[in-house]
Each structure stands twice: as structure tokens, then as C-alpha cells.
């Protein structure tokens, strides 16, 4: 497949870097100020070097990305809430011109799911978004394999930063502020960790799961969300006395979405440590399935994008 990648952050750059290994060709990559476009395949190394040097990935107008011949738009711009722009418009543009779209950007899938599906229905292209939930972990494709009707609920840990902080607090008896500073030093937490620690990031992923289970109907405002900022070390100590620990747990079902700090058995499957993520799928006929792994990171998330590309049907008529 010929890929046009919009967004040149960790994920977009990793997709460009790994595309060749997966048998695909990058014909365009754009960031907010420029683009590298070549119908015969761009020089990926050159584009990534420019980006690493603080420049744009290329000198072309970012809009020219949509004018080149491509099969799949990879939408990897930063997640935005509400109208989910500019991601939504990128997807719209690709579908209206009968191209496939693979999203790593959670915004459009969480906030405007029904509109995305309506655009897809009118297009020869299709959309996939494995990378939006759980990074490298195959969550949506597992649900797809089980058929969404046979999955009654999904719960688990889908934010590595919050999980890292809670793990360290429990292990070292340290307070939130202290561990957050450590996580920022290690690069586990961003300079502004708000969406990770207040539950928004996890909530977006569980909203997407609820949309997949219920075939739409949810956006972030339908979710009940609590973060971990108010959890002191003493709460984790008390939990540990009882053989439990506290994790930022999300739950998605056809009835709703909820994210908040919860008591879970210390040695239970959901009490993953560090930045690891886990999703538990509750099935109608087969009990629980657990998928665990790395929930973030450029190359990790890029593998989910490229797996999605591999699942797309051919566009040839």
C-alpha cells in the first residue's frame, strides 16, 4: 500500500520508519508546517533527519499531501477533544476521495464516531483505528475476531503514565508529587501530564471501546472520569494491608464508560506494573480474555498502525 502520513510526532515518524519493513511505501509525510511528497516514494531517512534537526519534514505545502496518489491516509496528528480537528477533516477528505484511513489519533473516533462511520459508508475506503486503544496491544482486532456482539464489556489499564505513578507510589511509599516529578525526569510523564493523570486519556480509549461494542453513541462527555491526583501514598498502604492495590481502571460496556482509581487484587491480572497496559474483555461464552503489553510509544503504536494497513481490503475495482 502507498501511505500518506499526516502528523510527524513519535507515531507518524515511526510509521514512516517501519513502513518498508512491513512492505509498504511512504508517498507523503506532513507536519503542521511542511510536507515531503513523492508519488514514487519519499526519502524517509531524509525527512526524518530534517525533523530531528528541528525543521519541517519537507518543503512542500502540507496540503499537497492529499493531492498525491496514495492508498491509505495515516492520521497521526495530536489527539484533540470536542470537534477533533484537524484530524476529523483529514479523515473526511480521504474518505470522500475513496481512500482508506488508519487512525492513531483518538479524537475523531472518540468524539465523532457516528460521523466517521457515515463517511465510511459513503466511501470505497474503510477506516481502522487499532492504534488508538492500547498502543501495540491488539485490542480492537481481538474484539473484531470475537465479534463485538460476543463481548459484553472491556476493562483495564490504558494509561501507562498513571499506572507507573501508582506502581511507584505503592512500591516506594512515596507521594504523588514526588513520583510524578520522577516520572517526568524519566520521560514517562510529559511536561504537562494533565490528560494522563486526570483520566482523560484513558477515558478516550474506553469511549472508543464502548463505541465499538455499541456501534456508536458515546463521546468523552458521556464518560464518568476521575483521576489519580488525589490519591496519597497512605491510601496505597491501606490497600496493600488488605492484599489489594489501586489502579486507574477504565470500564466500557454498551451502558456506559467509567474511569477512576479502583481497588484491585494486588496479584490480580489487572494490577500490571510500570507503564504496562492491560485490557480484559468479558465475553458471553468464553469468560475473560486478557491482552497485555506496551500501550504507548512511537514504534509500539506504529506496529498497530501498520497491522491495520495490512488488514485493509484492496481498493482495486
Amino acid at each position, binding site marked *: 500500500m502507498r501511505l500518506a502520513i499526516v502528523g510527524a510526532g513519535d507515531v507518524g515518524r515511526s510509521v514512516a520508519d517501519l513502513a518498508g519493513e512491513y512492505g509498504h511505501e511512504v508517498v507523503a509525510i506532513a507536519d503542521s508546517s511542511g510536507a515531503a511528497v513523492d508519488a514514487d516514494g519519499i526519502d524517509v531517512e531524509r525527512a526524518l533527519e530534517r525533523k530531528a534537526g528541528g525543521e519541517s519534514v519537507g518543503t512542500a505545502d502540507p496540503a499537497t499531501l492529499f493531492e498525491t496518489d496514495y492508498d491509505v491516509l495515516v492520521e497521526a496528528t495530536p489527539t484533540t477533544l470536542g470537534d477533533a480537528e484537524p484530524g476529523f477533516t483529514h479523515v473526511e477528505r480521504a474518505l470522500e476521495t475513496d481512500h482508506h484511513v488508519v487512525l492513531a489519533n483518538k479524537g475523531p473516533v472518540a468524539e465523532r464516531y457516528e460521523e466517521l462511520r457515515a463517511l465510511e459508508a459513503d466511501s470505497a475506503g474503510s477506516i481502522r483505528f487499532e492504534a488508538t486503544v492500547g498502543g501495540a496491544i491488539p485490542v480492537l482486532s481481538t474484539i473484531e475476531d470475537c465479534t463485538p456482539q460476543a463481548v459484553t*464489556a472491556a*476493562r483495564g489499564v490504558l494509561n501507562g503514565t498513571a499506572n507507573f505513578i501508582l506502581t511507584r507510589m505503592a512500591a516506594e511509599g512515596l507521594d504523588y508529587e514526588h513520583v510524578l516529578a520522577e516520572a517526568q525526569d524519566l520521560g514517562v510523564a510529559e511536561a504537562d501530564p494533565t490528560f494522563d493523570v486526570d483520566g482523560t486519556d484513558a477515558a478516550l480509549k474506553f469511549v472508543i471501546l464502548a463505541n465499538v461494542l455499541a456501534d456508536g453513541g458515546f463521546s468523552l462527555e458521556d464518560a464518568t472520569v476521575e483521576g489519580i491526583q488525589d490519591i*496519597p501514598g*497512605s*491510601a496505597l*498502604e491501606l490497600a496493600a494491608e488488605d492484599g489489594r492495590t489501586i489502579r486507574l481502571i477504565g470500564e466500557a460496556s454498551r451502558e456506559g464508560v467509567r474511569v477512576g482509581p479502583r481497588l484491585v487484587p494486588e496479584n490480580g491480572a489487572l494490577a500490571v506494573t510500570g507503564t504496562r497496559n492491560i485490557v480484559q474483555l468479558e465475553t458471553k461464552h468464553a469468560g475473560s480474555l486478557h491482552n497485555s503489553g506496551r500501550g504507548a510509544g512511537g514504534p509500539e503504536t506504529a506496529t498497530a498502525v501498520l497491522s491495520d494497513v495490512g488488514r485493509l481490503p484492496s481498493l482495486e475495482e
Partner: protein
Amino acid sequence: MADVPESDEEEPETDGGVRAYTVRLELVDEPGELLRALEPISANGGNLLSIHHERGNITPRGHIPVEVDLESPPERFDGIVDALRDAGINVIQAGAEHYGEELSVVLVGDLVETDLSETLSRIEDEADAVVKDLSLAAPEGTNATASARLRLAIDSGRAERVFEAIRAVGTDKELTVVEPLVGGEA
């Protein structure tokens, strides 16, 4: 004689219209408590069939479970249960539900400042739960943020309602409520 007086028609139909019910009660271990529990049953049209008084089997709440089989017209059964409750008797099962679960929750906030004992009473009253055990951790002194772990005895199948009530108390008192994750193979 052939005319049935009007007033009789308002009497509940009992002939042929009775059903058997089992009611599980929890009694405080005090003299006269059993008699006090049975009185509202007969006073409200229930007919006692058998009483199983499990003295050796103390409930998680430290009370004595009593199982009462009775028969009454279906339309009067709710009245009997209400009368028992009005008399201060703990009805733990009158149909499908009974006490049987234990849950832990952790509360975080200015627990002392916001009157911990009142918080516990409210949880017992509003969530219809019994606080069995409390652990408090206030590493920065009682005037700062503290954490408490509560072990609660609740009716089986009522966990969601209990959490709703605890959440409401938490919201009122600006406490963070960390609930256990229920359901699934955690």
C-alpha cells in the same frame, strides 16, 4: 343472613389466597428479641408456620439469624415486611436478597475535619451497610489528608446501590472514594 355486610368486602381475601413465604431476620442477642420480631407478623395477618433460630450461627454482623416460614395473602406480605422494619427488626431476606457480601472501600480526604464518625454513620444509614472494620492512615497528622479503609457487610446483589450511596456521601464531604472493581476475573 344471606346479605354479606359491605364492610366484609374490604377484608383481605384469605381463604384459598394464601402463599408461603420465608423471611430471614437478624436479631440482636437480647432476651425478648425473638418474641418482639414475631409480633408484627401475626398482627399483620401472617400465619406462622415454623421458626428456625440459629443461635450457634452468628452473622458477619454479630447477630443471630432467624428464619421464619409464614403464610399470608400475597397482598399483605409487603405490609408484614414493612411492619417488621418499622419495629426496628433487621430483615435480611424477604425475597431474593440477603446479607452476604463484604466489600472494601478506601476514602481519602480531610477525614477527621469532616467528622469521620458521622461519615461512617451516614454510610451505614444511606448505603444500608455495616462497617465491620476501619483502618486509618494519617501520616501527616489528623489535620491533613488522611486515608481510611472500610470493610463493609452488605446485601448480596446490592453492591452498585451501596457504591452510589457512598459516592454521594463522598461528594458531600469532598472525599475521594476508591471503590473495588467488582465483576469479571480481576
